[in-house]
């Protein structure tokens, strides 16, 4: 393919035939997907999966293949102009424990298994991109930095990507975050957010006189009721999500321990801070009457921000999707892209295919749309490389 491209229109013209051409990479992509998927990679334990990715990068003869102190895996596809760099990120961690059976099934039209969508497919795209570019005869002007970031989900708090961005010396023009699901996903803004973890402990004494009152579940329940009383404005859009609650041991044993995981998000950073302070007050107030000991931790947080919908990077994403017949689903993100845009780097998150049963053991992706997802990604790389996604000076 001729890679000297003069305008975004030329890229759009290439698009209709690109998905078909990309089917030529099917076995390589799916083999990478299977092998990466079948290595458990819970947050903080991504080492083995990253190691396989690096092995693939080595076989593809990428430059500067390395891991850093945070365990991130990096390799560079060199461009013609060494002063320019584009960042491509896929997170390496998954929500599944290593005890889960990670075997993948490859069916006629679907692939099924834990984490195939989130985010083994994203990582497999990183692993296969050198083969894709080679197959299509594309050499970009900019270096393409392929990063598989660690410690992203939950308590990971994007620590891997944060470490990389804090310590790498490469100036990037733009970034694309790849997620397996879903085709049409377009994120270029982040909401303010924090994830909280409240634990409650009560003394381990059996007191039949106070049965029904002396319970960590009841104490936590009172805290939850008070959290729910916090006024939540519609504008700026704000929400509190109670995600998980745990407590107690059995039917007939008083619960001495309970915990709550929740997330607060808002378009306004001030509102996030206000809610956080309210919850701290509730916790302080709840301890004494219940004879309970509460602990409140922030395990993860993000600043709100983003680029504008009129930014050429976003506009071109929408043009590319439209040309491929993909309906854009615009939504704010809490994932890698939020960290990139918080640092002033124009970035988007793109999804690769259609998925279902997300985060279940039978997580499923559809094979055919993958080629449209890849075509979209290639088009955006060419658009960034051609300088068509820069804001006017």
């Amino acid at each position, binding site marked *: 393919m001729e890679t000297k491209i003069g305008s975004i229109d030329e890229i759009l013209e290439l698009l209709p035939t690109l998905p078909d051409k990309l089917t030529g990479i*099917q*076995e*390589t992509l*799916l*083999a*990478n997907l*299977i*092998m990466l998927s*079948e290595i458990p990679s819970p947050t903080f334990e991504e080492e083995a999966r990253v190691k396989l990715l690096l092995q693939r990068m080595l*076989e593809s003869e990428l430059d500067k293949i390395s891991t850093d102190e945070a365990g991130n895996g990096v390799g560079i596809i060199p461009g013609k102009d060494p002063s320019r760099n584009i960042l491509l990120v896929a997170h390496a961690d998954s929500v599944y424990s290593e005890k889960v059976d990670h*075997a*993948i*099934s*490859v*069916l*006629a039209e679907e692939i099924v298994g834990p984490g195939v969508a989130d985010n083994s497919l994203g990582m497999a795209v990183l692993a296969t991109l050198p083969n894709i570019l080679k197959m299509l005869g594309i050499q970009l002007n900019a270096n393409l930095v392929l990063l598989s970031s660690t410690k992203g989900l939950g308590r990971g708090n994007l620590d891997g990507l944060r470490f990389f961005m804090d310590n790498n010396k490469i100036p990037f023009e733009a970034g694309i975050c790849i997620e397996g699901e879903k085709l049409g996903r377009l994120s270029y803004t982040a909401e303010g957010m924090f994830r909280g973890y409240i634990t409650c402990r009560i003394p381990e004494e059996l007191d039949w006189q106070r049965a029904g009152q002396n319970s960590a579940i009841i104490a936590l329940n009172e805290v939850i009721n008070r959290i729910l009383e916090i006024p939540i404005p519609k504008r700026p859009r704000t929400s509190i999500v109670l995600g998980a609650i745990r407590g107690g041991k059995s039917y007939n044993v008083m619960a001495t321990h309970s915990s709550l995981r929740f997330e607060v998000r808002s378009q306004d950073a001030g509102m996030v801070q206000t809610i956080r302070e309210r919850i701290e007050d509730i916790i302080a107030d709840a301890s004494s009457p219940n004879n309970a000991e509460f602990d409140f931790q922030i395990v993860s947080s993000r600043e709100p921000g983003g680029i504008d919908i009129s930014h050429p990077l976003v506009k071109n994403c929408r043009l590319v999707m439209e040309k491929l017949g993909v309906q854009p689903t615009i939504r704010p993100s809490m994932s890698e892209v939020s960290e990139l845009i918080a640092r002033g780097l124009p970035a988007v998150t793109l999804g690769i295919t259609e998925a279902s049963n997300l985060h279940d053991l039978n997580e499923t992706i559809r094979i055919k749309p993958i080629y449209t997802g890849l075509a979209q990604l290639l088009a955006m790389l060419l658009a960034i490389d051609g300088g068509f996604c820069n804001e006017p000076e």
Partner: protein
Amino acid sequence: MSLNDWIKNNTMHHSQFWDLKKLVEEKEKQNLKISLCLPTLNEEKTIGKEIVMFKSELMDRYPLLDEIAVIDSGSTDATREISANFGADVHLSSDILPQYGEKKGKGENLWKAVYELNGDVIVYVDADIKNIHPRFVYGLVAPLIYRPEVHYVKAFYDRPLAFSQGVRPSGGGRVTEILTRPLFSLFFPELTGLVQPLSGEYAVRREVLESIPFPIGYGVETSHLIDVYEKWGMEAIAQVDLDQRVHRNQETRDLGKMAFGILRAFLFRAEELGVIGELPELSTVLKQFQAHDEEFEQVSHTIVEEERPPMIELPEYREKFGIK
């Protein structure tokens, strides 16, 4: 060579052959063609993954395999469709050498593969493996590439990731331990050096496959081992540890049917070789029990362990491969 020496010299681990670039170079130097045969019957859940993995890693990335062929016994699920989607050559067993009729059994597919496939080496891999990995092929092919005296390479598995004591029990499956190993111990003691004589994964040179008969059913592996041992000796056989293999576990009653077929094939082979005297006519009926409430009912299974002749005896084969 003593059995202990054979075990030491001819038992390998797949990790010895990790350098696929070197392996492919050596294969090309010898101008060898290698074919992979996947015999199937309703394997839609696992066949796609196997083909994707082998095609990507051992054809596109490292050209170790020259063809990947599915020989199907007439699956009623999507096995053939999936196999073709992912780039395998798909053959219906009944379409190969139709003039010789269609017989039911995995051995039939393996025999027909010798005619249909073109490699100097054929690797057979079962289609029901959940933890498929390229080692299932390169681990078996490598000894044939590196050691000209080796003609037949058998897989074995069972390497626990952790084991607390210095010595661990190791061996084959249930049928191996309660049938095949006792039989080998009695009549072919050298063959007891094989850890898993019944494993469905093996790589064999064409000159061996074309010159031995193929029982069409469960006895094919046992029969092959005896024939290779008798014709070429133990030095022509090697075995490779492929670590763990995850597959569907079979019901004990199904293992009974398997044991019946193996026993028939074994006895015929032993009789033919003069290892045992003349046999009376053997029954083809296996009787098992099933219980309805308090009533026990006998169930009969007819298991015919027919045999296909050595492929080299077929004029069609001789013509296709230019054998005069």
